[in-house]
């Protein structure tokens, strides 16, 4: 054990000295966190936008659209709704980006609806596609309700009745009521990391491979510079040599992860979940990365070859594991394949920790799979590495 720590200390000293540890364990995570803080503003993680409304109708139905439908977006703190007097002013605000979209209710809108004639609401969209889509969805939902009212009134008229004010009002009230079936999606609402956390976690699990590789690379470097023969001649077991290298890689991976977590939390407001649950998830993820790095290095002959192979494996696993595209948006086949990667299980664990009531049991599948990957690949890599040492 003492020999393994001495060897790990020597490797870490060398990596600090050639700055590779600083680059991959500290600067890269910090740089990524800073890049996210620029590219993904904090507001994005708690979405908010602004719409301007021009109500040239001023009628009863237009009032419902403004007060109830668009007002609900304001009540939910999704959007600010400001009423403007002219369509030109509203369009200018959209053009200069101070409003995401303008909703223009033309004169005669209420009358057209009540008479069962085609009515129009114009949406002037800007460059914020998501915000424009929200405005369009809100107005579309209202248009559907209006369609229901018009159908009811038309039915009354077809049955010989007259569309009196009471009928129209009752239809409007009925349309405004919530539907008989309410659909809520608990999983998505409560267990999805926000954007800052997702990208922070995704980059962390991808780059941890570049930090952990230095343990395995040290073994190949010892063979290359000739120091391995001296290590083997020392009164220490081959297991101590392999253990020291693994420990050094693990420490570097852990530092890289921790820097990323702290940096994205402070700079981005990322929510990584309760530290007591995050810690085992991070430890098992680093173990998985360490194991894979060791296995990859065991098939290489030189540190340079191992570094290139490790980069290919790290980026491939990242692509398959949902680092670049959330698995929820990926094709079904890719979603299935992704489950063999540590990236998938780490990101799933981070998603789970986003829930307010996450427990150790909730992340147990992620912990178990990550640990299994670490043990399996690490054992294979170490067995191969030991065989290479002994068979020199």
């Amino acid at each position, binding site marked *: 054990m003492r020999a393994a720590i001495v*060897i790990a200390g*020597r490797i870490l000293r060398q990596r600090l000295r050639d700055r590779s540890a600083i680059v991959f364990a500290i600067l890269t995570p910090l740089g990524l966190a800073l890049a996210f803080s620029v590219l993904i503003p904090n507001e994005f993680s708690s979405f908010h936008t602004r719409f301007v409304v021009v109500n040239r109708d001023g009628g009863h139905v237009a009032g419902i659209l403004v007060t109830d439908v668009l007002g609900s977006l304001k009540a939910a703190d999704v959007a600010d709704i400001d009423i403007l007097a002219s369509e030109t002013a509203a369009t200018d605000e959209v053009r200069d980006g101070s409003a995401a979209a303008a909703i223009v209710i033309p004169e005669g809108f209420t009358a057209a609806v009540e008479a069962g004639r085609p009515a129009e609401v114009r949406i002037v969209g800007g460059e914020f596609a998501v915000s424009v889509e929200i405005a369009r969805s809100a107005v579309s939902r209202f248009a559907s309700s209006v369609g229901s009212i018009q159908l009811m009134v038309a039915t009354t008229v077809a049955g010989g009745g007259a569309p009196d004010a009471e009928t129209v009002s009752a239809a409007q009230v009925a349309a405004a009521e919530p539907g008989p079936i309410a659909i809520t999606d608990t999983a998505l609402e409560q267990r999805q990391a926000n954007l800052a956390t997702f990208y922070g976690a995704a980059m962390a699990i991808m780059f941890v491979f570049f930090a952990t590789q230095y343990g395995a690379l040290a073994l190949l470097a010892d063979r290359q510079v*000739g*120091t391995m*023969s*001296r290590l083997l001649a020392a009164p220490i077991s081959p297991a101590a040599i392999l253990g020291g290298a693994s420990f050094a890689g693990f420490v570097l991976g852990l530092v890289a992860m921790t820097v990323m977590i702290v940096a994205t939390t402070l700079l981005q407001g990322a929510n990584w979940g309760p530290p007591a649950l995050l810690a085992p998830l991070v430890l098992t993820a680093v173990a998985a990365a360490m194991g894979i790095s060791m296995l990859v290095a065991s098939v290489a002959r030189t540190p340079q070859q191992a570094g290139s192979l490790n980069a290919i494996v790290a980026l491939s696993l990242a692509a398959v594991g949902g680092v670049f595209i959330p698995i929820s948006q990926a094709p079904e086949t890719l979603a299935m394949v992704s489950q063999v990667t540590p990236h998938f299980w780490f990101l799933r664990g981070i998603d789970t920790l986003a829930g307010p009531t996450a427990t150790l049991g909730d992340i147990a599948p992620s912990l178990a799979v990550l640990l299994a990957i670490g043990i399996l690949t690490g054992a294979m890599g170490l067995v191969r590495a030991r065989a290479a040492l002994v068979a020199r």
Partner: protein
Amino acid sequence: MAAPPIGRDPGVEPVPRTAEPAVTPPPGREIVLRCVGLEKRFGSRRAVAGVGFEIGRGETYGLLGPNGAGKTTSISMVCGILARDAGTVEVDGRPIDIGTTEAKAAIGYVPQDLAIYPDLSAVENLRFFGQLYGMGGPALRRRVEEVLDVVDLRDRARDRTEQFSGGMKRRLNIAIGLLHTPKLLILDEPTVGVDPQSRNAILESVGALSAEGMAILYTTHYMEEAERLCDRVGIIDEGRIIAEGTRRELVDLVGGTDKVSLTIGGDGKAAAERIGRLDGVGSATAREGAIDVLASGARRILPRILEAVGGDGVSIRSVEVVEPDLEAVFLHLTGKALRD
């Protein structure tokens, strides 16, 4: 440890050597290394075939042979860094193998390749390897200073070794092997690539360590080093020890023959064949620019040898008749030169 500095100007008197050591460690002398029947194959190639020898306390044993003879493979098995196919090794009475740790603590190993970390300083290299041998604290710091003095690197102790010259790296390589004061020091061709001054100093230091009681296993393909340093020499070729003994015993194997060295111009192959057919000539071997002849009463038949060289565009530049040395022994035993 009072070994003379390896890197200093070698104005030191050569270490006195016993006139003729015993063929085997004298009875009663503590045996530090005993290896028997070492064998190693790499695929179909038999690299080492039944190598065995003993080294006593304070004795220097040389493994002399050309490159590829099996020297490094043999000592790799002795050090427990290479798995052997057959045979046993005992160091200080304890068996040694890849996984053993106790017996390895008695060995100081100086590999042929420079086994130092270029991005660490001399002190950092020494401390690291010292810690692997269980050393630490003030004792390690003191010992590091001592060996830095021995190899004359104290003033460069804090510099990264990548800035060292080849000779300085070699000296540090040896210092690491000495650090834990081993009972058995194994040096694998420690003077390869070293300037003559450092080489001389290294040889003196090795002699001093032996005089202090350290058992030394020294591999080399330089006949002069083996003759100067070693109490006994094992001549190894193609994985086998083909002869073993003191220098005198080995030279006696050649019989009353002398060695005639001819320096020539041109290709001496045909001339060597003609010389080889002369009465009284044991062997004649041509190498680049020279012909080596082993002959009984060489001075008497020298005119006929010179006559046989004539023709074929070969010119004689110098002639030297010397008593047989280990080079001659190797030539006699194998029919080829040590540096072929």
